[in-house]
């Protein structure tokens, strides 16, 4: 896909809304198309977190391995979602597994490249930090509510 195609995709995505053209061009320069077959892992716990994904098609299960129970799915992300924030925060390691449960097509954005750009371009760093902080907060709130085990009788 040409970079103009990436620009269109990223420019229309709500997650990247309000980025200025130069910031968007930086992201486009760090993007590439990726594809995963069902069952294939996008990343595994403990591996270097060197990118994040913008899912264009399919579903990914974010899992944690538990002794005896195999993988427990913590959440799923679908087309349109952004997956992965560990590339932005030390120690830059994935904390969970991410497994494609169907054919997945996505844009992978090079986190190592972007970290470098963010170091040189503070507004870009702030823009990305703000967006990923929002994702992290939403995930935290969801986890807190899931811990309530709401569907147990009497809740």
């Amino acid at each position: 896909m040409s970079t103009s195609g990436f620009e269109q995709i990223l420019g229309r995505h709500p997650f990247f809304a309000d980025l200025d053209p130069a910031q968007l061009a930086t992201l486009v320069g760090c993007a590439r198309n990726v594809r995963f077959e069902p069952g294939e892992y996008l990343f595994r716990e403990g591996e270097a977190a060197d990118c994040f994904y913008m899912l264009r098609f399919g579903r990914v299960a974010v899992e944690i391995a538990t002794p005896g129970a195999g993988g427990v799915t913590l959440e799923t992300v679908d087309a349109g979602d952004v997956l992965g924030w560990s590339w932005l925060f030390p120690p830059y390691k994935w904390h969970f597994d991410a497994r494609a449960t169907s054919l997945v097509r996505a844009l992978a954005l090079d986190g190592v490249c972007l970290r470098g750009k963010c170091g040189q371009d503070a507004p870009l760093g702030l823009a990305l930090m703000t967006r990923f902080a929002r994702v992290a907060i939403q995930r935290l709130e969801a986890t807190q509510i899931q811990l309530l085990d709401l569907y147990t009788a009497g809740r």
Partner: protein
Amino acid sequence: MLDTKAPDSTNPTPAAMRLLPAPAADPMRPVPWTVRRVLRETADTFTLALAPAEADTRLAFAAGQFNMLYAFGLGEVPISASGDPARSDELLHTIRAVGAVTRGLRRARPGDRIGVRGPFGTAWPVEEARGHDVVIVAGGIGLAPLRPAIHHLLAHRGQYGRVSLLYGARSAGDILYRRELSRWRGRFDLSVEVTVDRAGSEWQGRVGLVTRLVDRAVLEPASTVALLCGPEVMMRCAAQALEERGVPQASVYVSLERNMKCAVGLCGHCQLGPALVCRDGPVFRYDRLRRVLAVREV
């Protein structure tokens, strides 16, 4: 052309209340019904199908209303009707066995008799929602009181805009009405999304809060009526997610559960702030009660 003006009705007005089905005779006297079938839904949840024990017994209800089910010798429990409101010859109630009475009802077998009082309370605003998009958000056993509304919407499908059912359950094994959900998913005029809170790797569906489904739902906010039923925290989160999508709080309706005893507004056991849930609910317009629901002491 759909009317895009959001409905401005509140809870049913006294005039509208009179139009809702009500007990035919003495509301305090249980009428015997015969257990026709007991359907196991999940490990702890079952559906009782009841048939009139006497030839002239009928019980018409509106979607969202509840009945008092009397397990003779054990006691009464309020249970929302969960069947098709167009059928008055068979009553369905989906029940989670969590106490002495509901466990007693689970032990019922075809041919057994139980007492029924009802129907009581307010209904889902399915008439007011005509011409609008309808978003149904159900959590856990909260799908049961919403099922009659879904039956109604599908029976009158042409009168509504987009209809979406967003359903969250604890796990895959806790999903109610699996066959019906599969059938509904196969329709081209109904969007059905299901998510569970926890799952193993064998589950291929969504995992996450039902509120995330609200974020993704296709809807026209100003012309959407939302019907919510499930744990109160879930309903509050879903109402907030709908508000963030631009759905007016006055177009959001919730079904509440409190300690209903008499079901006719006399005993006061189900008081919730200024309302008696058995009489003024169980279906409420959310903006009328949202402040009360946030008060811990109530």
